């Protein structure tokens, strides 16, 4: 049974392979994000190394790569994944472990790679590419006054109107506690401490429930990243949590009347992993090292408002302002890691979610069912 299943899976994957055997296959989330990766560092790296890099879209999760491995026919080399997935994949032996200082080039001033990263990697298999933010934005035409803090997001008396929040528990619980008066502490440690107890989880759920059942408030749950700016612009909601790059795109790229609020934001990371036993592992490793070098990472920030993982990349951007592709907009203040944006923030904790994701997901759905 098992063998036959492997054979079948192998067959289906063999059929699905259309890329040439010599190219490196990089897998990412598609849309404007993949575009920024391709233009920012994919194409320059490919040109410099003479390696072809094919960009393939996927919708996240480890199920595909796990199925490829079970079938014994791996077709992906590099994958763009969440922190949680790098931990799971690393522990299950799906990805290559790195020696950061040896495998990745130092910063231009000689700082070793591991010291140049914004924060330590969550696992030995992960090399960061961007940091993005779960912040919120509001429609300047539909909101009277200026919301400034995360508390204002929940303040329906002062700012009446519907809110859009993410469909799952991830980051919603943290934001709720930050708005309920818990100081995040260093990197959000206090929030996660509170969420370790049933009482803390209940407190967060109650906060959300109150917002969603408030006749002056109400919730719309979004599932795709393009939704929050769209909901704001159409006037469906007055405030929405979302990914800062998408808000930036609508605000600066398209001139929509929305404004971002950084107070109480959740910083989250995106990583590249190298698949163990991928079709072109050696070339992929070379390409990965180059793509995550200082200059290259800074390149992607030309096209999207996500912060490069290397501190030295910010210096490159500062020196090159205005850095945005339109040649007018300064990019450094738009970065989720900029000092004025990180006065009150938490780091999304992948280990906490790896531990408790399923149970909190169930509680979250049960809460939603009762709305």
């Amino acid at each position, binding site marked *: 049974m098992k063998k036959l299943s492997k054979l079948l899976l192998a067959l289906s994957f063999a059929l699905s392979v259309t890329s040439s055997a010599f190219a490196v296959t990089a897998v990412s989330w598609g849309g404007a994000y993949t575009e920024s990766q391709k233009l920012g560092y994919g194409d320059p790296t490919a040109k410099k190394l003479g390696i072809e890099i094919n960009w393939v879209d996927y919708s996240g999760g480890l199920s595909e790569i796990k199925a490829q491995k079970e079938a014994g026919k791996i077709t992906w080399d590099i994958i763009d994944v969440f922190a949680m997935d790098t931990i799971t994949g690393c522990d299950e032996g799906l990805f290559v472990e790195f020696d950061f200082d040896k495998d990745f080039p130092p910063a231009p001033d000689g700082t070793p790679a591991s010291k140049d990263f914004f924060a330590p990697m969550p696992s030995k298999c992960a090399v960061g590419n961007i940091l993005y933010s779960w912040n919120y934005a509001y429609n300047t035409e539909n909101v009277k006054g200026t919301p400034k803090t995360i508390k204002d997001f929940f303040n329906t008396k002062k700012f009446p109107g519907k809110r859009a929040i993410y*469909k799952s528990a991830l980051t919603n619980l943290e934001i709720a506690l930050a708005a309920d008066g818990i100081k995040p502490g260093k990197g959000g440690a206090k929030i996660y401490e509170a969420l370790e107890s049933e009482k803390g989880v209940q407190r967060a759920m109650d906060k959300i429930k109150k917002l969603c059942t408030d006749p002056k408030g109400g919730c719309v749950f979004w599932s795709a990243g393009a939704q929050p700016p769209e909901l704001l612009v*159409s006037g469906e909601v007055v405030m929405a949590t979302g990914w800062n790059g998408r808000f930036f795109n609508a605000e600066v790229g398209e001139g929509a009347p929305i404004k971002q609020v950084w107070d109480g934001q959740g910083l989250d990371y995106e990583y590249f992993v190298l698949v163990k036993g991928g079709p072109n592992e050696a070339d992929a490793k070379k390409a990965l090292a180059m793509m995550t070098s200082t200059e290259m990472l800074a390149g992607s920030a030309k096209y999207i408002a996500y912060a490069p993982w290397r501190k030295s990349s910010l210096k490159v951007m500062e020196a090159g302002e205005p850095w945005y592709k339109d040649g007018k907009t300064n990019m450094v203040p738009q970065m989720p890691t900029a000092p004025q944006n990180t006065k009150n923030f938490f780091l999304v904790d992948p*280990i906490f979610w790896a531990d408790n994701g399923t149970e909190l997901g169930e509680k979250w759905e049960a809460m939603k069912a009762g709305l």
Partner: protein
Amino acid sequence: MSNETKQILTTDGIPLEVSLKKAEKKNKIKAFLLVAPLLLFLIITYIFPIGDMLFRSVDDRMVTNMLPKTYKAMEKWDGKDLPPEEVFEAFYIDYKLLVEQKTFGKLATQLNYEKNGFKSILKKLKRKMKKFENENYKEQIMAVHKRWANVEYWRAIKRRAPDITYAKYLKAMDMFENEDGNISQVSEDRRVHRVLWLRTLEVAFFVTVFCFLMAYPIAHLLATLPMKYSNLLMICVLLPFWTSLLVRTASWMILLQQQGIVNDFFVWIGLVANDNRPEMMYNKTGTYVAMTQILLPFMVLPLYSVMKTISPSLMRAGKSLGGTPFVAFWKIYFPLTIPGIGAGCLLVFILAIGYYITPALVGGASGTLISNQIAFHMKSTLDWSFASAMGLMLLTGVLVVYWVYNKLVGVDNIKLG
């Protein structure tokens, strides 16, 4: 002698019976070879994956094989208080081996399905284990994290002992088997699956009803109008059918939102006040509207193909024999369309029961269906056995509907075209 005379021989001297059988056998093989590709295709794409799914949903040997010594030591433990030193020692030995083989991640994932919080304490144990002294494992392990001193976690390990388990099916019904072997419900704030099952059935049922109510007149019109008009109408039915599902869902979002076109129109004709626009999306209304429209062709087409074959003279005959139009319709026309209704309803219901993109996008808080949960466990938690169990339950549900239909109407009556 008498026997031989009775036997009829063919020209080459072989008894006719044998010769016939031979020829028949040849034909049978030929026929079988003709259908063999299809049969093989069915086995490979249908029977085999379902079998694999069934097997996955109950197979639980992985954990048992990873912790052989632990389970041996656990046999004597009653599960009431913390296990004795031997269990801790056996666990230490088993786990150490897994760490050396670099397969401990799989154990962490599996145990985390059973009880949340295993992942981090196993990782912590892995780090601290390097400095362990050679005895008193119980104390040393318990010192790593307070959860190791919590009997719940050890019970969770023990629950994974059997090779074959139906725990995933219980979990899909928000139940679990406690250490005494009794089946009980999970705590109230975690009961989510049953809600989702009921919601899935409810959505599928109502969408089927709405589709039927709307498709019947359309199909009737299609079947009775002159060719010139019916062709145009047919295109109107088919065009959306050929359009991408996501495009159609997104268009409904533009139409139905509070600042959307439908609401704008209502305000314009003065039906509703501008500051009191009704919510037609991010609730059940949105789900029903969008799904009904998307699945409508699956009802129209079978109905149409059946109605097309009903001769108009039958209705005329009914009326000429004294029936009112309604009686003629109800006694003659409607029964003749039942095969089409059956096919359409089954099709729509089965498609609706597995739907999730549309409800997720337009359904708001009520937009999560059981298929979203299956996708979540397939993609995010990688708990494929749980996803398999839920998938099979969904399949069983469809088969039950099919069976009920067969009992009530008869499957032979289905007509797709």
